[in-house]
Each structure stands twice: as C-alpha cells, then as structure tokens.
C-alpha cells in the first residue's frame, strides 16, 4: 500500500495533471476547429457583452427560467459546483501538499466549512442519482456515461471525507482518495465532465446568438 501511495502522489500525479492540462488544450483546439468547420459564421456574432450577460444571469440562483422551474435542481447544482470548486482548491490538506512539495501556500477554508461543503457535495451527488433513477424524462436521456461521471465525481469526495474523519486505515483511504481524484482529473477532458472547460464557451455562444441575432434572453 505504501508503494501504491508513493506511486499515486509521484508519477501518477504528474500523469494525471498532464493528461488533464494537455487533454483540455487539445479538446479546446479541436472543438474550436470543428465549430469553425461546421458553423463558421458564428464567429461574426460572438460578443463579449451578450456572452458575459448570459453567463452572469445563469450564475444567479433562481434567476434563469430553468432554475425557477426546478428549484431542487437549482439548489443542488449550485451547492454541488460550489463545493466541487472550493474544496479541492482551498482545503487545508491540499494546500499543505503544495507547500510541502513546491514551497508555496495560500489562504485555506476553515476545516469545518470544508467538512460542510464536502458533505453537501456528497448529498448533492445522491440527489442527482435519485433524480436520474426516478425522473421519467431524465431517465429517457440518461446513458451509462452519465452514471459513470457521477460516480467519478462522487468518489474523491467520499474517500476524502472518510480519510479526514479517520474512518478506515488512513494510508489506504488516502491512497484511494488520491487515485480517485486523479481519475477525475483525467476524465475531465474526455467525458461529459468536459463542461468544465467548455461550459462558459457554450453559454457565451448561446448568449451571443440570442442577444445579437434573435434579440431575446436565453435565461
């Protein structure tokens, strides 16, 4: 287990960050060239103003029509993504690793806040799973990959929380946590998790078309 941990925080960490960063750049470039090929004229109406307006309006809870119609989805989505971004970046235990290996650090979340966000992400994953299993419309559009990416996002938070609460042997739980986090990093460019790199562009594209061409709101 010790060797596996050393592997996970050593070569595997380099591989995971490499696949994530290089994979994301390749996906962005290839998506851009595909968009140019299939829908070249969109470049003429891409607009910072309408793009940012749409992004901003969708970032306000209960503002967009879609959020108003689905309060549970609205709350779950916001809580889930807030935790998903804040905890990995600002958890004390993560910043300590930057500090230990690279010699830099930055402000962190209080441990209690991190615990609450982590539990919130875990609960949000369960809500998403419950909706996927019970909502007829959602079930109709759900594929195996949707379940897979939900599991990939769920595992680092579950194992991280268990490790932080000293459930199970710390070395085993932490190793599972590191490996599941690396799995998620590597899955981002190549699965539906890629909305992390494409989401803002898609929104800006929709906002530009609705704002500049249809003269309508898209939220």
């Amino acid at each position, binding site marked *: 287990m010790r060797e596996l941990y050393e592997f996970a925080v050593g070569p595997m960490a380099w591989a995971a960050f490499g696949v994530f960063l290089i994979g994301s750049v390749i996906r962005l470039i290839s998506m851009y060239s595909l968009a140019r090929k299939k829908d070249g004229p969109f470049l003429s109406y891409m607009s910072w103003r309408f793009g940012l307006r749409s992004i901003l309006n969708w970032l306000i809870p209960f503002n967009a029509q879609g959020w108003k119609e689905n309060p549970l989805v609205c709350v779950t989505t916001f809580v889930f993504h807030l935790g998903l971004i804040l905890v990995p970046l600002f958890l004390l235990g993560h910043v300590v690793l930057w500090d230990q290996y690279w010699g830099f650090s930055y402000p962190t979340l209080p441990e209690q806040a991190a615990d609450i966000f982590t539990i919130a992400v875990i609960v949000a994953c369960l809500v998403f799973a419950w909706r996927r299993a019970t909502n007829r419309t959602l079930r109709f559009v759900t594929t195996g990959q949707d379940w897979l990416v939900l599991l990939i996002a769920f595992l680092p938070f579950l194992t991280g929380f268990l490790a932080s609460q000293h459930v199970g042997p710390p070395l085993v739980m932490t*190793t599972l946590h590191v490996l599941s986090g690396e799995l998620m990093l590597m899955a981002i460019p190549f699965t539906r998790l890629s909305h992390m790199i494409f989401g803002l562009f898609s929104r800006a594209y929709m906002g530009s078309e609705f704002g500049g061409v249809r003269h309508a709101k898209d939220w």
Partner: protein
Amino acid sequence: MRRVNVVAAALLLAGLVWALPALSQEDMKTVPNAAFGTPQRSAAVFQHDLHNEKAKLDDCGACHHGDDGGKPDPASPTPGQPCAECHPVDAKGKTPLMRAFHRQCVGCHHDSGKGPLTCGECHT
C-alpha cells in the same frame, strides 16, 4: 553526618527525577504546536525517544539541524533550541514552521521507506 548524607541523597534523587525526563524527552508525546496559535489539526503524534529508538537515530543533528547559509546543516546540531526560532510561522522567503515540520518528518519517512506519510497517520 549520616542525616546530611540522607538529605543530600534525597535531593539528588529528586533532582534526577525532575531532570532526566527533561533531558531524555521521554514525556514528549506530540510535536509542539503552540507557535501556531489556534491550529486546525491536532498536534502530530511523536514520541521522541520511542521514535529515535525505532528509527535507530543517535545523531541529534538529523532533526535538530543547524544552519549553513540558509541550508540545513546536520553537522552542527541544535537540540534544545525551539524550531520556531529559526522557522517562524510566517517566514517570508525562508522555510516557515509548518513546511519545516512537514518536510522534515514526511521527507525522512519518504526517503527511508518507513513511517507515516498521510495526514491522518500523524494528526490523529
């Protein structure tokens, strides 16, 4: 005369009882963390003598190292000197206390292939 000897022996014994643990650090159970003010994690478990016995460490300078132009110098040991003296909690441009602790402990455990590596193994 005999009474004086008994008193002297008692005083000497009392002095040893007080001084020996202080010298041998036998009572040390955790890494001192008072310098951090209100630490978020529990103090790292560390039984000084037991650790050094297990790790076969006789050389104080292995941990209580000196300073050689900004680099750790194990050849000039500094036992008894608080780590925070050279490694303040907010040491801009130098090695702050938390980084010094983590690098010292985890670094050695990593290199030697023995001892705890993950958060929960020390901060229990």
